[in-house]
Structure formats: structure tokens, C-alpha cells
């Protein structure tokens, strides 16, 4: 079980900020592929991964990061702080 979080337009496109996902995905990319297969709104949100960033357990990570032992994955567009 993973907590999956969405921020900014990813959250808006998918329509929720957070969900619990039952998955055996080995990497972030595997998780993305599972989510894409669910519904059109997920496919739309994950259409262009170059426009997205991912954090694994609250640390920025790459899409090939492993999910073993991970509790929280977050997807969002590039940050615009400052």
C-alpha cells in the first residue's frame, strides 16, 4: 500500500490530492503505467512525463526509482517557489 499524492495541475487533472494505492509496482515508472491504465484522467495527467517531477518519501527522485519499502510517492509539475 502506497500513499500517492498529486499537486498543482496534476491534482486538478486527476481530481484528487491523495489516494491509497494497492500496488506491486517495482519502480515509480511501473506505478505510472498502472495509473495510466486506470482512467482517461490519469492517462491525461501522465501523458508527458518530461513535464512532471516525482518525490519518493518526500525526496525528489527519478522515475526509475525503486518502490521497495516506500510509503509515499508524489507527482507534481516543476516547482515554482521563491
Amino acid at each position, binding site marked *: 500500500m502506497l500513499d500517492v499524492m498529486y499537486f498543482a495541475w496534476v491534482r486538478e487533472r486527476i481530481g484528487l490530492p491523495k489516494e491509497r494505492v494497492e500496488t506491486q509496482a517495482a519502480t515509480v515508472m511501473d506505478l505510472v503505467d498502472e495509473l495510466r491504465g486506470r482512467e482517461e484522467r490519469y492517462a491525461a495527467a501522465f501523458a508527458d512525463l518530461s513535464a512532471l517531477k516525482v518525490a519518493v518519501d*518526500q525526496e525528489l527522485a527519478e522515475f526509475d526509482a525503486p518502490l521497495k519499502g516506500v510509503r509515499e510517492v508524489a507527482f*507534481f509539475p516543476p*516547482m*515554482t*517557489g521563491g
Partner: protein
Amino acid sequence: MAVRVQEEAFDAGAELNAFSKTGTDVGGIVSFTGLVRDVAGGLDVMEIEHYPAMTERAIAGIVSEAQARWSLADVLVIHRFGKLRAGETIMMVATASKHRADAFAAADFLMDYLKSRAPFWKKETTGEGAAWVESKAEDEDALKRW
């Protein structure tokens, strides 16, 4: 070192004055204050979303990196989230050092990293609708300076 992530407005001048009482071996203090700019068509509101579980930790990591690179007596970072209007203060960074070069470089570095590596997202609403502020290639490029 202090990092504050908050919804409430803050008084940048009062923060600067409090931060300046940081010890008698400090020769220079650099501050950066980020303000909400108005946009074409008139900004109704800027809404800043963040990732609470990650934000303070990400900022603290950036501050630690600055402290490792430069000789700093103290660092302050305040960043707001929620709804802001044009002219309001979004955030502030301050660095205190014995010598000005360290204070300048560290503040500049902190801003570059907060811009692209702290989990905040800005959405601007004008009379024409709402749009997420897009990150700029130049902001990502700025990180390569360090």
C-alpha cells in the same frame, strides 16, 4: 538557522531587524524579499500550494548545503502559502556573515534552489481565468552556476 513555512503575512522589515541582532562578528547581512507581481489584465489572486510533509525538510536541506559552502553566522527563510494579492510579500531569505561575499553568494544560491527545488506551486487568477505559473528554463539553468 530558522525556516518558517506559513500562511500568515509577515513583516519583512521587522524580520530583518530581528535577524540583524545576530552577534558582533557579523559584518554584513543580505536579504531577498519576493513580492507578488501584478500581471497583464490585473491579478485577482495568486494561490500558492505546497507539499507540507516535504517543504520544511527540503528547505532545510538547501540551507544546509549553503552552510557547507559558505561561512554563515545565520540563515533565515520564510515562505508563505495560500492566497496572496499583488504587492504582498511571498517569501524572504536572509544570510548573515563576517564578510559580504559569503552573504551575497549564499542568498543568491538559496533563491536559485528555493525557486526550483522547494515544493511550491503558484497559480495566478486574473479576469481571464486561472493558470499555473510555469517554471522557466532559465531557473533550471541557474542551478548550474553553483
